[in-house]
C-alpha cells in the first residue's frame, strides 16, 4: 500500500475505448454475427412499383417450397397497427404501395437462400397509379392523393402537437406537416434593411451508410414474452411503440442491443422490417433473424431530409442583421418519419445562430412517392446552415465588410436569451470564429484567392467560413429528456455502471466510465459498463441530439457522487476522521490535503459489507436536464446547453473538370470541456468527413421514385485518399450544467462543412452554387455558365 497518493485526473486525457480491443480483434459480435438456437431467416418482398394498388397476392407457390415455414401478408396479421411518426403506414402494406421500398409479404425459412427463392415465387398483381416524384407537383390542386383513406389512427407524439396540420392519413391534400414560427416583424425588418437577398437552395438525398447493415432477431418465449435483438438507438421508447404496433403489453417486451455497426440517427424510428420480423416469429413459433443486404439498406433505410429552402435575408450598411424569412418545402417521401420534423432544429439556426430581430419561418412537409427521410446526424441543421451561411457571405460582400467581421458583429454572446427562448449560458461562438480564422489565415488567404481568381490558370484556390449552433445539452422533445444510472461496487473496489445510454460506436461507455472514475478515484480498468438490455438498464430517452455525454454523463456523475458520499462517510466513521477531509484516489481512501493513505477502497467495501450492518455500495440516479419544452409557438429553452463551432474550409477547384478537392479544414469547436481527447478528436474528424461527403460526393439519385444508385459503386462515400488535412481546436467554455463542464459534440462537426465549402468555391471562382452536392459536373456547368472555365 502506498503511503500517499496525490490528486490526478483523467479529464482531458487520451483514453482508449473500452470496446476497442474486442473490435480490433474481430471478436465483437454484431447483430449480423449473432445466432439464436433454432432460428429461421426472414426476408421481405418489396414493391416493384412506385405507386400502385395491390390487386392480388398469391403466396401459394412460396408456401409450398421446401424449407419455408411461413409466408405472410397484411391479411395474415389483422392485428397490425400503423407505425411511424405520423402512424401513416402499416408494416405490411394492405391495399396499396406508395414507394418502391414498400413491404408486401415476408417469408421465414430455414436458410437465407430458401427465403430468397420463396420471395421469387410470390406473385403480386398491381394496378399502377400516377407517380408523384416532386413535392411541388404534390401541392398542385387536383394532385392525386397519396394517403386517401384514413387509417383511423392519430399521432401520439406529444412533442409534435405544435406542428399544425400534422399528417393524418385521409386528409384532403398531400401535406404531411406544417411548421410556422415567427418573431418580431419581418416587414419592419425589411424596411430597415440596406441590403436584401432572396435565394432558393436545393438540398439533396443522402443516406447514413452504416457499415453494418440493418437487422433484427425476434423470439417469443413460451409465456409469450418478446425478446428482440435490435440495433435501435431508442430502446425504451421502442418498448412502448412496439407494444402499440403489436397490440401487446409493453412489460412483456425486452430489447437487447448488440454492438451496432453505426447509427448516426438512422435507428431512431421503427421501420417495417422490425415488426414484420416479430410477425414471422409469432407465425412460426421460432426465433427469426432478418438481415438486410446492402442494396436493401440503400433502398429501405431512411435518408437525410431533402429540402427546397427559400431564404430572404437583410442587413444594414453597418452590418447589423435585420430579418430573415424562410420558406421550406420538405419532400416527405411516402411516409412520415423524423425527417419531417427537422424544422425543430432548422428554425433554431435561422433564428439564433446570429442575432436576428425579426424572423418568419414556414415549412411544409409534403408526401411524394419517393424514399422517406429519417433523422440523420445534424437533423436539418446542415440544410439550414447551408443557406444561412451563404447569405451571410453575400450580405457581407454587398456592404463591403469582411465575412469574419460581419459574423462577429452579429454573433451571440454568453448570457443571451434569444427571441426563440434559447438561453446561451455558455457560448464560445466569437472565440470559435476568431480561433478558426486566425489558425487558418482566413482573411489573408481569402483576399489573395479573390485577387487570383480572374487570372489565367486551371486550378483555383478558395477559402470559406461557416459557423453552427446545435443543441449540446439534450433536447427536450419528449416528456422527459432524462437518463438513469445504477452503480454498484463489488467487494474488491470495482464498479459496475449500469446506464440507460446506448453505445453506438461514439465512445459513450468509455466517457461514462471516465466520469465515474473521476468521482471515485479509480483507474479505468476498475469500471465495467452495462448498457444494452432494457430488462437491466434504467430508462433513457435514447441516443440522439448529441445528448449522451451530457445527460448520461450527469446521470453517471450523480450516481457516483452518491456512492462517494456513502464511502467517505463510512471511511470517516471507521478511521475517526472528518469525511469532508477525505478523498478517493487510486483505489484508496486518502486524507485530501496530504494525500496520506487511510485504507484501500476494497477493504472499506468489505468492512461495510461484512459488518453488522451488512451494507453494499449501490446507488442510482436519474438526471433530468433543466431544459424546457417549447410552447406551441416553438419558443423555449429546449436544451440545457448549446454547442458552437466555426469551420474554415480550403478547396482547390479544377476549372477544367469542375472537380473540387477539400484541402484543409480548420475547426474551432466550443465543446464546453474536453473529456476524452482521443474520443472527441475522433468524433470531429469523422463528422468533418461526413460533411465532406454531403458537400461533394454523396447523392442518392432518385428518379421518379426509383433509387438509381443503391450501392457503394455509384453512391460515393469519401475514401481515405480524399480526406483533407485537419486542424481542430477546442474552445473550452466550461458549461455550468455540463458534466465536468462538457457539452454535446456528436453532430456538430458535420454541420457547416457544406456551407463553408460553398463559400470557398465562391472565393475561388466567383461562382456561387446553391444546390448540393458539388459534383464535378454541377460545378463545371456553373463555371461554364459564368465563363469561368479556362
Amino acid at each position, binding site marked *: 500500500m502506498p503511503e500517499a497518493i496525490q490528486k490526478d485526473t483523467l479529464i482531458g486525457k487520451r483514453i482508449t475505448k473500452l470496446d476497442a480491443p474486442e473490435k480490433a480483434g474481430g471478436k465483437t459480435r454484431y447483430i449480423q454475427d449473432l445466432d439464436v438456437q433454432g432460428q429461421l431467416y426472414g426476408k421481405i418482398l418489396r414493391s416493384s412499383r412506385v405507386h400502385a394498388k395491390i390487386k392480388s397476392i398469391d403466396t401459394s407457390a412460396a408456401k409450398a417450397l421446401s424449407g419455408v415455414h411461413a409466408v405472410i401478408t397484411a391479411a395474415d396479421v389483422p392485428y397490425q397497427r400503423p407505425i411511424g411518426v405520423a402512424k401513416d403506414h402499416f408494416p405490411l402494406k394492405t391495399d396499396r404501395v406508395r414507394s418502391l421500398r414498400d413491404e408486401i409479404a415476408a417469408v421465414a425459412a430455414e436458410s437465407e437462400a430458401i427465403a430468397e*427463392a420463396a420471395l421469387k415465387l410470390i406473385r403480386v398483381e398491381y394496378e399502377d397509379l400516377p407517380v408523384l416524384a416532386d413535392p411541388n407537383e404534390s401541392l398542385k390542386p387536383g394532385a392525386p392523393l397519396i394517403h386517401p383513406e384514413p387509417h383511423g389512427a392519430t399521432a401520439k407524439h406529444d412533442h409534435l402537437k405544435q406542428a399544425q396540420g400534422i399528417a393524418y392519413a385521409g386528409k384532403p391534400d398531400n401535406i404531411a406537416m406544417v411548421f410556422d414560427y415567427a418573431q418580431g416583424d419581418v416587414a419592419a425588418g425589411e424596411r430597415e434593411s440596406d441590403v436584401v437577398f432572396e435565394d432558393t437552395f436545393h438540398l439533396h438525398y443522402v443516406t447514413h451508410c452504416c457499415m453494418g447493415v440493418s437487422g433484427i432477431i425476434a423470439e417469443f418465449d413460451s409465456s409469450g414474452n418478446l425478446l428482440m435483438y435490435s440495433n435501435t438507438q431508442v430502446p425504451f421508447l421502442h418498448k412502448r411503440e412496439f407494444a402499440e404496433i403489436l397490440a401487446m403489453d409493453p412489460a412483456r417486451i425486452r430489447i437487447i442491443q448488440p454492438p451496432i455497426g453505426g447509427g448516426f440517427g438512422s435507428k431512431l424510428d421503427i421501420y417495417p422490417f422490425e415488426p414484420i420480423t416479430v410477425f414471422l416469429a409469432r407465425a412460426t413459433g421460432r426465433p427469426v433473424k432478418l438481415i438486410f443486404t446492402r*442494396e436493401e439498406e440503400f433502398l429501405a433505410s431512411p435518408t437525410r431530409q431533402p429540402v427546397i429552402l427559400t431564404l430572404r435575408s437583410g442587413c444594414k450598411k453597418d452590418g447589423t442583421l435585420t430579418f430573415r424569412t424562410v420558406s421550406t418545402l420538405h419532400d416527405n417521401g411516402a411516409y412520415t418519419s423524423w425527417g419531417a420534423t427537422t424544422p425543430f432544429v432548422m428554425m433554431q439556426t435561422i433564428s439564433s445562430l446570429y442575432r436576428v430581430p425579426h424572423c418568419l419561418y414556414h415549412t411544409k412537409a409534403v408526401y411524394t412517392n419517393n424514399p422517406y427521410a429519417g433523422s440523420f446526424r445534424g437533423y436539418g441543421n446542415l440544410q439550414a446552415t447551408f443557406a444561412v451561411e451563404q447569405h451571410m457571405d453575400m450580405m457581407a460582400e454587398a456592404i463591403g465588410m469582411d465575412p469574419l467581421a460581419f459574423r462577429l458583429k452579429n454573433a451571440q454572446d454568453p448570457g443571451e436569451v434569444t427571441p426563440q427562448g434559447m438561453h446561451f449560458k455558455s457560448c464560445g461562438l466569437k472565440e470559435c470564429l476568431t480561433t478558426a480564422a486566425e489558425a487558418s489565415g482566413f482573411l489573408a488567404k481569402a483576399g489573395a484567392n479573390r485577387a487570383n481568381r480572374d487570372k489565367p490558370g486551371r486550378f483555383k484556390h478558395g477559402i470559406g467560413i461557416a459557423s453552427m449552433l446545435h443543441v449540446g445539452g439534450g433536447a427536450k422533445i419528449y416528456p422527459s429528456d432524462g437518463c438513469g444510472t445504477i452503480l454498484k461496487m463489488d467487494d474488491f473496489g470495482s464498479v459496475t455502471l449500469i446506464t440507460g445510454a446506448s453505445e453506438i460506436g461514439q465512445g459513450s461507455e468509455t466517457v461514462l466510465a471516465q466520469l465515474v472514475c473521476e468521482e471515485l478515484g479509480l483507474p479505468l480498468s476498475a469500471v465495467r459498463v452495462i448498457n444494452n438490455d432494457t430488462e437491466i438498464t434504467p430508462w433513457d430517452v435514447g441516443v440522439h441530439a448529441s445528448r449522451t455525454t451530457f445527460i448520461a454523463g450527469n446521470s453517471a456523475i450523480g450516481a457516483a457522487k452518491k456512492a462517494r458520499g456513502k464511502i467517505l462517510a463510512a471511511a470517516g466513521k471507521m478511521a475517526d476522521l472528518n469525511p469532508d477531509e477525505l478523498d478517493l484516489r487510486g483505489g484508496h481512501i486518502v486524507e485530501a490535503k496530504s494525500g496520506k493513505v487511510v485504507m484501500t477502497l476494497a477493504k472499506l467495501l468489505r468492512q461495510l459489507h461484512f459488518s453488522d450492518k451488512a451494507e453494499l455500495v449501490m446507488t442510482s440516479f436519474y438526471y433530468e436536464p433543466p431544459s424546457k419544452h417549447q410552447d406551441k409557438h416553438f419558443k423555449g429553452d429546449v436544451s440545457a446547453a448549446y454547442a458552437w463551432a466555426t469551420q474554415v474550409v480550403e478547396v482547390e477547384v479544377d476549372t*477544367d*473538370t469542375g*472537380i473540387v478537392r477539400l484541402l484543409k479544414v480548420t475547426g474551432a469547436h466550443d465543446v464546453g470541456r474536453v473529456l476524452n481527447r482521443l474520443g472527441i478528436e475522433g468524433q470531429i474528424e469523422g463528422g468533418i468527413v461526413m460533411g465532406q461527403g454531403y458537400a*461533394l*460526393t454523396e447523392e442518392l*439519385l432518385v428518379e421518379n421514385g426509383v433509387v*438509381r*444508385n443503391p450501392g457503394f*459503386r*455509384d453512391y*460515393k462515400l469519401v*475514401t481515405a*485518399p*480524399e480526406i483533407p488535412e485537419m486542424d481542430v481546436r477546442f474552445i473550452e467554455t466550461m458549461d455550468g450544467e455540463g458534466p465536468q463542464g462538457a457539452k454535446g459534440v456528436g453532430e456538430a462537426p458535420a454541420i457547416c462543412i457544406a456551407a463553408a465549402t460553398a463559400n470557398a468555391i465562391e472565393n475561388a471562382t466567383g461562382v456561387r452554387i446553391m444546390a448540393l452536392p458539388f459534383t*464535378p*459536373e454541377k460545378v*463545371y*456547368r456553373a463555371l*461554364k455558365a459564368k465563363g469561368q472555365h479556362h
Partner: protein
Amino acid sequence: MTALDNYIAPTSLEQAVEQLQELGEVTILAGGTDLMPQANAGRVKFKRTLMNIRRIPELRGIVREDGEIRIGALTTIAEIMAHPLVSEHLPLLVSTGDHFASGQIRNAATLGGNICNASPAGDTLVPLMVLGASVELASKPDDKLFRRSMPLPEFFVGPGKTRLAPAELLTAVRIPIPPKGFVARFHKFGTRPALDISAISIGVAGVLKDGKLSQVRVAFGAVAPTPVCGCATEEALEGKKLDAATIDAAAQAAQDEVHPISDVRASAWYRKEMIHNMTRRILEDVAANH
C-alpha cells in the same frame, strides 16, 4: 434455383479447351471480382458448369517473345504492376493499374477477366488499345489445339459482348514493345485516385520525333457501347507538329467524334466536354514533357 450443377478446375490449357468443347454450357471463373457480384445481382446467370481456370499454369506469367510482351490472361493487375518487363517497356500499364479499383481487387482481378467482361469503362481496355495490343484465343474444335489472335479493338462487340467463341478461351494479351520515342498517356476521369468507375477515359499514344507525333493511337472509354478508337483525333494529330493549334484541333476532333449517353455517372454533354478538355490536357502534357 440456379442451373449450376458442375464444377471443374482443369490444370492444363488442353484439358480446359477440351472440356469447353465437350460441355458447351460453361461459365468461366478467373479472378471472380466481377462474376461474383454480377451473379449475385442476377445480371449474370450461371451456366451448367463453372470452370475455374485459375489452376492452369499456361495462363499465367509475363514474358518477352519476338518483340512483344506476352501477358498471360490470368495475370492479376497487381502482378502486372510489379513486373520488371512491364515497368521497363509498358509503364503505361503500371499507372493504369494504379487507378484500378482497390488494392484488394488489384490482387484478384485478372487482365483476361477485365478484357472478357468488355465493359465500356473497363480500366485496362483503353490503354491496351493504344498500346496496339492483340488477344490470343485458344480452342480445340477437333484433335488439335487451335489458336488465333485478333487486334483488341475487333474483339469488342458491345457491353459484355466479345468475339470469343463459345468453346474458346482467352489465353494471353500480346503487346508490341514500343519503339524509341514512344509516348503514351492514359487519363481516367474521377474524383479519387481509384475505386471509381470512370465517367470517361482517354488513351493517347504515338511516336514523338522532332515535336511531331506519328503512328498515333487514340482510344476512348465509357463514351460508347465498347471502348472505341478515336480515329478523327488520330488523324488530327498524325504527322503534325504538336503545337497549340494541333492540340486545339485534336481536342475538338475528339469532342466531335464521341457520342456518349447520359447515365448516373455523367450527362452526355459533360462527357463530351471532358473528352475535349482532357484530350487537350494530355496533349499539352506530352508537348511540355518531351
